[in-house]
């Protein structure tokens, strides 16, 4: 993958230029779908964009010293990592890539939640610390399942390259892995029933309590980009290989949209679970399937 392709993927499609409006669109879809399912009207179409603009115009509180600098850095890091993750997605058929870019994608997908955890602690607010601790516990719980699922998919198809994975015909094990990833997505995207770090009435805004203005706008944007990256990962893994570029892009958009709707139904249908129930769900229920998936992948690998 040469520099121009990389820059085009990062900045244009499916990178920043495409992903940022798409992130706002997905945020709107989720809010609107949840509202309609609750019998309400919900926000108008431009709402996430207008929220972003309004936040850019607000003041930030004075923060001195290294702590203040760190607090300003975390949202920027989260946005860059999420944008990079979106840029790595193999949407177009001839998008190039490199060996091991699946691992880079996973790492970049992890960075926003790491930034949230760090931000909560560096804000030196008690609510931030509690929220970050919850996010950390949640992250450990779902990440084991998430990573095992991805690794089992990659091991079963003998490749860690996203483009190859997208081109190979999907196997039964891949769909199992996709199901496991779908189970982890509500926790990753802070949706009900695993929306614990955002528990507003319990811990104010958790890790985000001390953030305001443009920094908060960056956090909202990184959240939206995480939506695009996570649903896009499921879409690229689930989509069959199509050689027409525009059709592949359309299929990517459509599949991501379906995943967003599914997650919205789940968010509207459930209430927030407490931390012990959440962790128990991931460790007891889903871990067994992830372990089964990876062991069968390795078994098939060593058998062939």
């Amino acid at each position, binding site marked *: 993958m040469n520099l121009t392709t990389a820059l085009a993927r990062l900045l244009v499609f499916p990178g920043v230029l495409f992903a940022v409006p798409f992130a706002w669109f997905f945020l709107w879809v989720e809010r609107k779908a949840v509202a*309609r*399912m*609750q*019998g*309400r*009207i919900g926000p108008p179409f431009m709402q996430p964009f207008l929220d972003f603009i309004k936040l850019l115009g607000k003041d930030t509180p004075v923060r001195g010293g290294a702590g203040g600098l760190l607090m300003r850095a975390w949202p920027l890091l989260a946005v860059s990592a999420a944008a990079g993750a979106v840029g790595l997605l193999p949407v177009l058929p001839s998008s190039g890539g490199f060996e091991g870019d699946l691992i880079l994608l996973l790492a970049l997908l992890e960075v926003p939640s790491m930034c949230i955890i760090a931000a909560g602690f560096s804000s030196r607010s008690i609510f931030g610390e509690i929220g970050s601790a919850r996010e950390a516990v949640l992250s450990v719980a779902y990440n084991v399942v998430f990573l095992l699922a991805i690794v089992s998919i990659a091991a079963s198809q003998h490749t860690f390259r996203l483009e190859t994975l997208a081109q190979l015909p999907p196997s039964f094990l891949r769909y199992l892995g996709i199901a496991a990833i779908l189970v982890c997505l509500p926790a990753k995207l802070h949706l009900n029933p695993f929306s614990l770090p955002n528990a507003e009435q319990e811990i104010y805004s958790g890790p985000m309590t001390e953030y305001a203005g443009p920094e908060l706008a960056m956090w909202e944007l990184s959240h939206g980009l995480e939506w695009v990256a996570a649903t896009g990962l499921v879409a690229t893994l689930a989509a069959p290989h199509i050689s027409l570029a525009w059709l592949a892009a359309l299929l990517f958009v459509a599949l991501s949209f379906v995943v967003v709707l599914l997650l919205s*139904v789940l968010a*509207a*249908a459930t209430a927030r679970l407490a931390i012990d129930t959440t962790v128990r769900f991931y460790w007891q229920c889903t871990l067994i399937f992830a372990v089964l998936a990876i062991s069968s992948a390795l078994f098939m690998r060593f058998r062939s």
Partner: protein
Amino acid sequence: MNILTMLWKNLLGGSRTILFPARPKVSARYRGLVRFDPALCTGCAICRFRCTARAIEFKAGKGEFTWSYDPGHCTFCGRCVEGCKSHAISQDPACPPVYLNIGELKNSYTVARKPPAPKPAQAAPPAASGQTADPATEVRNERS
């Protein structure tokens, strides 16, 4: 699967939201803004005495009085309406509007005092002293 049925019904049935800035109608018995009728008011100021929130103010002048009401103070309890003997006060089924400055909603009325009603013609002198015309003792006698 009950919750999914509910969500599906909500999606199909449309929202039950009242679109802003439309407002729902209040019922006819809603205790809202106090309405004052100066023509019926006798200036007894019982409403000011009974008002719990000091929304009603009463200032007696020479031959006239000023009655004022501030919905910003009002708690819409209705004690003034209950206490008014001449039914000059009533409550409309209406909500007070949003305002920007304190005292903006207050309205005052200056009402001229009515001249006293003419006395009826002199009645016949009371009967023989055997009968007590004192109403209080009459009541006591009835009760004992």
